[in-house]
């Protein structure tokens, strides 16, 4: 037996096996995409035609009318706007706050830090329903006249931003503190000796070095917050105030009266996440594996 033998052995069976593997993967990925392709197919066909010929039939007409109608009739733009008002501040504040905690925990060994990190991470792993009952009551009790339209934390964008920040900062603090711990200690040490303030150390030295991790987390957070369904279902009572993902539930009963419109509405809702995903796929995946303890 020699290396040459082993290599030869490796090389010969490769071809047919590889082809088989590709066949398998093509078939499986098509099967994986099938539900989405089916939704696209249904959304592209006029309702009159599908109700006449059935959904599994050769299409006579394919157009974007359902998309147009779903978008206009339900005033989807308004709900996308709601999402924007919630998601943008939530992502920015989460990153700011969690990077501050991570900076503290990773740079200053004040004994508390493992415990603090444990509290943050464990909190993020809890099922949301564990805290929802008291949270819902608390939101109803907190009066904010003049600050939110509802006069309370309940039924307001502010309320949703706060819970997103509180919940997601656990995960981000964990990931960022791991990241910051790997930056050489000499960096901040030197700055401190030079008389730089703590805030400058954080803002001008540590944060710029965390850009890759921050970018990955920002991508991940945007998609998570955009996709959130539960918080808004419980903490928002006025249909008008709901972000798009949660509004879909009401809209499907009210405006999306046939399956073709439901398909179009659901797909329209998915488009922003798909764009973010295709453009920033690498960021998204690296963020997900960076802190794989996320539920």
């Amino acid at each position, binding site marked *: 037996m020699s*290396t040459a033998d082993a290599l030869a052995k*490796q090389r010969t069976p490769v071809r047919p096996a*590889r082809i088989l593997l590709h066949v398998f*993967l093509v078939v*499986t*990925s098509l099967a*994986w995409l099938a539900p*989405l392709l*089916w*939704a696209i197919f*249904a959304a592209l066909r006029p309702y009159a035609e*599908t109700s006449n010929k059935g959904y*599994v039939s050769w299409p006579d007409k394919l157009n974007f009318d359902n998309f147009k109608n779903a978008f206009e009739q339900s005033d989807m733009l308004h709900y996308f706007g709601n999402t924007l008002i919630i998601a943008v501040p939530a992502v920015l504040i989460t990153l700011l*706050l*969690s990077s*501050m*905690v991570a900076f503290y*925990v990773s*740079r*200053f060994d004040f004994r508390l830090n493992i415990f603090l990190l444990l*509290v943050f991470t*464990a*909190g*993020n*792993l*809890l*099922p*949301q329903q*564990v805290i*929802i*009952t*008291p*949270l819902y009551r608390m939101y109803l009790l907190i009066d904010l006249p003049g600050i939110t339209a509802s006069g309370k934390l309940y039924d307001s964008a502010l309320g949703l931003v706060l819970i997103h920040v*509180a919940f997601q900062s*656990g995960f981000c*603090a964990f990931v960022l503190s791991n*990241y910051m711990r*790997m*930056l050489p200690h000499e960096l*901040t*040490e030197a700055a401190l*000796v030079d008389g730089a*303030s*703590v805030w400058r150390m954080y803002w001008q030295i540590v944060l710029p070095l965390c850009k890759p991790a921050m970018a990955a987390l920002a991508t991940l957070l945007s998609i998570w917050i955009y*996709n959130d*369904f539960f918080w808004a279902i419980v903490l928002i009572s006025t249909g008008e105030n709901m972000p798009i993902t949660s509004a*879909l539930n009401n809209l*499907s009963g009210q405006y999306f009266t046939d*399956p073709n419109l*439901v398909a179009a509405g*659901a797909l329209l809702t998915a488009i922003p*996440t798909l764009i973010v*995903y295709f453009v920033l*796929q690498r960021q998204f995946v690296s963020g*997900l*594996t*960076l802190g*794989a*303890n996320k*539920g």
Partner: protein
Amino acid sequence: MTTDTNMKSPEAAAVPPPGRAPDKKRVPRGHKRLLTRRDRITLAFMAGVPTVLHVALVWVTAIASIALAFTSWDGIGFSSIKWVGLDNFKHLFSDNPQFWPAVEHNIIWFVVLILIPTPMGLFLAVQLDKKIRFSRVYQTAFFLPVVVSLAVTGFVWQLVYNPDTGLINSLIGANKPGHYIDWIGDPHLNLWAVLVAASWRHTGYMMILYLAGLKGVDPSLREASALDGANEWQTFKSVIFPTLRPTNTVVLVVTIIEALRAFDLVFVFNKGAQGTELLSILITNNIIGESSRIGYGSAIAVVLLVISLAVIIPYLIATFRKERQA
């Protein structure tokens, strides 16, 4: 996780591991001594604000859930809170017709996820890790369901399951009156129908976690195994899989948490009607439903909390201990 972070970050190389331990003891003291009063205030603010927000909204409410579970309250004024001891739990365990089915469904959810999509994700990851062409295209296809929200997933799968117009019934000719298969309404079928959709998503998630894990496997291990004449399956079983242990732990925890969190899909499908009751749904129905039974809903939340913490705490302690040693 830690290993992934080490792997991903270029800075990892900049920290010489042996020199770190003594450093760690000395540096913080040096840091501390150089801090001015203003720095200390800044630091207290930087750590304090996020902690207060997180603790107030997540942990105070979790503890409030526990306290409320022993009371009866209709939510109108604090004076109507009455201590009822274990009554809520007694009712829950003995006369709630939905509670035990919900527990069972959460368990089934976990068992299905760990037995079908998880090995499937591992299998796909192993295939896609083989430096084949179009690997990224395949990955994108399998991962797509993870990116789309669960609410949208619910609507898309309803189009597949709809008894009249859905893909499945249309294909097998079960969409005519008298032949209906009601995938969503039938309590014997609906949980499995939802679980297909949940598995569809979970597979891609697991594939990505395992792909990251496989990237960390030392290639020389594989070469050595091939030189020893081991075939693909033998190499995987005795060389690759054992080195994936950290990933397997993460996968197990993620899957348990997913099973406990399951909510969106079921809510979109049928609001957790008969056949698909889940603990998360029961809790939610007790607050946004017509009856606002706060104490009772909290008792269910406590059950969910206890199960979650039983998984989360040992896992995190093990993770942080490992980190300290590293």
